């Protein structure tokens, strides 16, 4: 999973419109997949660091917790209903969002587009 998010890092940092969308976003986000932690540290829209947990010392602003199977479906070009959006994962009981939800909502388009970068068919979409 670390490799996937390193790929997200490369894609994001090469995508000017996403960096522009996230230019006020300098936070750390926790992604937890089947209990395995990955910390995404953003700096003014760029993904500065991708680090593997577990860590009890890394503060995070909000967290998305899900499972690998759900995330694999989420990253299909046309996911099944419920798997097509991070809030869909929550709705169908395959995801949980914790922490500063308002911070997430203020940066929702940015975060959703970051999370969708590994989606099949997204290659070259930027």
């Amino acid at each position, binding site marked *: 999973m670390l490799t996937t998010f390193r790929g997200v890092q490369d894609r994001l940092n090469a995508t000017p419109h996403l960096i522009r969308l996230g230019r006020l976003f300098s936070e750390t986000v926790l992604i937890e997949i089947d209990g395995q932690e990955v910390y995404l540290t953003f700096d003014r829209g760029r993904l500065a660091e991708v680090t593997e947990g577990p860590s009890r010392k890394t503060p995070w602003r909000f967290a998305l917790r899900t499972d690998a199977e759900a995330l694999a479906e989420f990253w299909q070009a046309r996911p099944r209903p419920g798997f097509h959006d991070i809030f*869909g994962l929550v*709705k169908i009981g395959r995801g949980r969002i914790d922490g500063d939800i308002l911070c997430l909502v203020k940066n*929702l388009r940015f975060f959703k587009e970051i999370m969708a970068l590994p989606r099949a068919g997204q290659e070259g979409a930027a």
Partner: protein
Amino acid sequence: MSFEPITGRYLTVTIAGAPRRIYIEEAGAGRPVLCLHTAGADTRQWRHLMNDAAVTEGNRLIAFDMPWHGKSLPPEGWESREYLLTTEAYIETVLAVVGGMGLDRPVLAGCSMGGRIALQLAALHPDRFSGFIAIEASDFQPAWYDIDWFHRPDAHGGEMGAALVSANISPHAPPVERWNTLWMFMQSGPGVFRGDLSFYTRDDSLIARLGRIDTGKTPVHLLVGAYDLTCTPEDARRTAEAIPGATLAVMEELGHFPMSEHPEGFRPFFLDALARMPRPRAAAA
């Protein structure tokens, strides 16, 4: 190059004892079909169907911007009022447009909050309509989000609202129409989406009224997209089962804004819905 068949005009009607200048678009001729947009949006959601000759053949499609939405201005004094849509005000507005335009028992087609009010009108004012097409409509949906997110001084409510409702758009929707659909939410006036959601997520008065809808006199057909997280197929099914005689179609590849996000995919379902609606006596003569 040629103009589209859609024409737009303004009509001033009286709502809550005061004038409201309403923007109305229409296309086609024949049986009137009054179309209601979703929360936080406007008549542009219906433009594809209004430009579709197969839909307008024998049907006069009419859509209007609710006050505060699109090109219908808010009422005088809005600057010091909190916009909170209510069932009563919504019903009064729809009936004022029906009366103001002199429509004889139109079919009423509404999406999301428009579908909700269509079902309220089916229960409370069936004599004013010939049938009801309730799209992404259900008895009641409490909010799983905080509606106050969408009206605050430190963030753009429209952009946040669009990012939230994108969860309800199907991945089968063409990207251009996904983004056109979201643009309308981004353009929504300050506090308007929140005020619409207040109606949609807090008023549960429809639940007790569903059983009184007489589909023998005015048919009710519900349409729901499988990718709709707000009004799920389960929500629509529960609602349809509470209305004796109501019919339901689940649209496997569509979401919460079918006429706007994926007009080609929605077209056959809407044509089928129209075919289920009776032709009013005056129009059939």
